[in-house]
């Protein structure tokens, strides 16, 4: 292995380096100035995010277990940008006294999950994929239990680890069947040897189910709301955006490249689960009072829309999924960012608490509204374009009924998103949440989200870039 080969793994190596540097810095840092580690990490992560965009060679390593292509690099870069925003948003939360002695844990755990996701996306072998998946999941469970003295947080951690173990078991069972019938776990060899016999399809279904847990697709979504509610808000936003995004990336890669032989089978599975996911996610979201649970169900339904990009098995579908995740990162982080700011300042997380928010916090209300409109797919913000392309991808292959159900679902979702807008703008309150003063990092994080929500849609060049390189995967 020559040194130039290492460049292929640049993302993973840089992330590992950052994690190690933080670990060392923690040892040498002045105990009274632990906060400085936050800015230090943010700068470091900003640098490697920027470095990720440098041109990079394509190639494969470890005998084909690890592959790097332009499309995979793009996915990693998108994830990096999302993680950067989450880190920026969590800066002010980490400054709280109760978190003082575990700042570095937060960063290290978070970054190691990103490393896992990167390996997962680059995998060319099911074992590599599985290792990446576990590395991406287990530290998250620790993060969910970050506020370990809070019962709910600890419960969220346990639930997440149990459900991950369970879904991993199902996934591995499916993989064992695939291995038993094809004799290999390399993606390209499995794709060649796959013959659509019953045992293989059974194996595929187990694999599908395992991934459905990770993506929280109905009927495998039941853990989502509890975990989202219990975990600290930035971990929740990480779960709903980055974890979900990474899982969707690798899922669509595997569906398109490993299982093209049984396209009709997985189209049926996705058809049914997409309808269930959108509809049930939306209907449950209507009843929620806690904003974290609310956003949990909203993110379930968003995963349902995402499946519309999967179903066509076409280039437009691949591009629209990647594009939508980019849009979704900015929109959802905008919404979670506002929830985080307000929860940090007041510990209030219910929709009722937001009554009359516009009177006291017009800026935050407007950001929240923009983010919600983007999630609902209202022009001129980015969500509109994202949804349009997803629907177009499904329509291109003639799934008009599915698109009809999806557009009707967007109306349901608009209803509950408007409930929050209503609370903020329409309902007058005697005791609205007081004016929240947010620090520099919070403003920066929210500002990035707003900029993204506005720019991504209009800048057609982004979509074209994504489309041009996404199919090389």
């Amino acid at each position, binding site marked *: 292995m020559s040194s130039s080969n290492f460049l292929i793994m640049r993302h993973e190596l840089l992330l590992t380096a950052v994690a190690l540097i933080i670990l060392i810095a923690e040892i040498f840092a002045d105990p009274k100035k632990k906060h400085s580690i936050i800015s230090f990490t943010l700068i470091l992560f900003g640098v490697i995010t920027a470095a990720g965009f440098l041109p990079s060679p394509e190639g494969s390593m470890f005998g084909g277990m690890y592959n790097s292509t332009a499309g995979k690099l793009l996915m990693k870069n998108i994830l990096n940008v999302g993680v950067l925003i989450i880190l920026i948003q969590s800066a002010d939360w980490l400054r709280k006294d109760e978190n003082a002695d575990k700042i570095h844990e937060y960063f290290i755990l978070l970054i190691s999950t990103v490393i896992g996701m990167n390996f997962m996306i680059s995998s060319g072998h099911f074992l590599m994929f599985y290792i990446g998946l576990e590395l991406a999941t287990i530290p998250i469970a620790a993060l969910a239990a970050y506020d370990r003295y809070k019962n709910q947080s600890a419960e969220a951690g346990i639930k997440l680890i149990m459900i991950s173990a369970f879904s991993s078991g199902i996934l591995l069972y499916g993989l064992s069947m695939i291995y038993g019938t094809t004799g290999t776990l390399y993606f390209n060899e499995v794709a060649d040897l796959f013959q659509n016999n019953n045992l293989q399809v059974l194996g595929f279904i187990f694999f599908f189910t395992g991934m459905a847990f990770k993506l929280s697709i109905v009927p495998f979504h039941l853990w989502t709301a509890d975990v989202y509610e219990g975990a600290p808000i930035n971990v929740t936003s990480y779960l709903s955006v980055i974890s979900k995004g990474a899982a969707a990336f690798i899922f669509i890669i595997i569906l398109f490249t490993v299982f093209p032989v049984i396209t009709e089978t997985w189209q049926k599975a996705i058809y049914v689960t997409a309808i269930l996911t959108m509809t049930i996610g939306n209907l449950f979201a209507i009843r929620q009072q806690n904003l974290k649970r609310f956003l949990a169900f909203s993110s379930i339904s968003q995963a349902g829309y995402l499946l519309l990009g999967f179903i066509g098995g076409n280039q*437009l579908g691949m591009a629209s999924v990647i594009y939508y995740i980019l849009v979704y990162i900015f929109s959802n982080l905008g919404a979670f960012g506002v929830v985080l700011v307000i929860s940090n300042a007041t510990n209030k997380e219910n929709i009722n608490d937001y009554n009359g928010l516009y009177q006291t916090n017009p800026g935050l209300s407007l950001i929240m509204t923009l983010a919600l409109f983007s999630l609902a797919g209202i*022009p*001129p913000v980015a969500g509109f374009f994202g949804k349009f392309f997803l629907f177009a991808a499904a329509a291109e292959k003639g799934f008009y009924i599915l698109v009809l159900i999806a*557009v009707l679902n967007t109306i349901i979702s608009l209803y509950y998103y*408007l409930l929050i807008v209503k609370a903020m703008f*329409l309902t007058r309150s005697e005791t609205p949440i007081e004016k929240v003063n947010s620090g520099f990092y919070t403003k920066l994080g929210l500002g990035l989200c707003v900029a993204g929500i506005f720019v991504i849609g209009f800048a057609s060049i982004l979509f*074209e870039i994504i489309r041009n390189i996404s199919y090389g995967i």
Partner: protein
Amino acid sequence: MDILTLFVVIPVLTITGILFVKDIKQVRIVAAIGMGIQLILAAVLVFMYLSARKAGVNDEMLFIKDYLWFKSLNIHYAIGVDGISVAMIALTSIVVFAGIFASWEVEFLTKEFFISLILLATGVFGFFISIDLFTMFLFYELAVIPMYLLIGIWGSGPKEYSAMKLTLMLMGGSALILLGLLGIYFNSAPDGGQFTFNILEISKITIPVSAQRLFFPLTFIGFGILGALFPFHTWSPDGHASAPTAVSMLHAGVLMKLGGYGAFRVAIFLMPEAASELNWIFIILTSISVVYGAFGAIVQKDLKYINAYSSVSHCGLVLFAVLMMNQTALNGAVIQMISHGLMTALFFALIGMIYGRTHTRIINEMGGLMKIIPFLSVAYVIAGLASLGLPGLSGFVAEMTIFVGAFQHTDTFHRVVTIVAVSSIVITAVYILRVVAILLLGPVKDEHHAHLTDAKWYEKVSVITLIGSVAGIGLAPFWLSTMIGKSLQPIVNKILAAGLF
């Protein structure tokens, strides 16, 4: 920058201007100046359009500009106008201008009010200049969503309920349109080649009839919801009654026209084969709209509800005429859109001004207003007469043309529905004259009303602008119908080419 893009840019600049000024007075002035420029620009556009036509430019659309936006999906920012869109743009700028003056007295969150109002107008202008279905749809949704805040925050009565109902129903309509547009797009190259969203290009080909049967109803119902098509009209009375004055004006006057305009520019023009097969269903529904709306108006007690139901009836007539699919009726449909737009805006403006003085909209609680506030009362009578189709005002020209066009079909079905629809004229006369009699004539019922002041200068600006336009169309309809008639030619040709009638 081309003149059409200015119609979107100026509202955006006005919004930016409003953001940076401090007190209420400045907000009003900036809004008025911005929309005043828009009005002048519309006049310039009409002039430019007419002189280009006079010079013998026979293109289907003029001032076309086309910028590639999303290359892989062949989405363009494409704009262009024909006589119909020029007329609609002129209508919109008049109503918005009048609307700014009608909402001079908004004091609660003034800045936000004018920003939302102008944002709505931006969407409407953008919709009328677009010839690319994607940008058209984008602007359409942009026009709908500010309604939620406008009604929800500044409305009256059960405003939260009405705002939610209106928004969800209209967005439901746009959901159907979205599906219809995707269907049109993926069938826009039946012989291979690149798909397109461009209306002019799609109109040159014939979308496979099997696809048309699927997507014509979706598109038509989608736009029909905004055009108050029975039974999807229920958002309209609640929404209009709860909305603040300027919003009712803009909504009934302009936004509902988006429905009618979209119905023929997209649904009928691009899919005439399916339209001719399926139009009987919608003709029945629109006839119900026309008559039901008029009857609904008779029994209402609230001025705004009366006018909202009357809008259902009149906008139903637009869709009715569109479905008749011949030159005369389509001509009538467009004139009716303009005429109803101005007239209903005038009505809602006056209702808002009367309500601002008497603090009631229940007709039985008022009386003898003619003696107290003669200017507003006379204006109300003029609006009423225009609404019931008095010759010399715009309503007459429109309705006459529509019914003549509808009667050109010689089969029994068309004759029967036309006769049914014509009966609405009589019913309209009943509810208009009833309101005039109770509200304006007779003794003063409430002594508190005896000392009301008549219209202020800004209210007069608003009212006179609208009355002038209504009378202008009524007295000199020919330039308008020539302008429209020529532009209808390609649409009619396309329908004829489909081998119908």
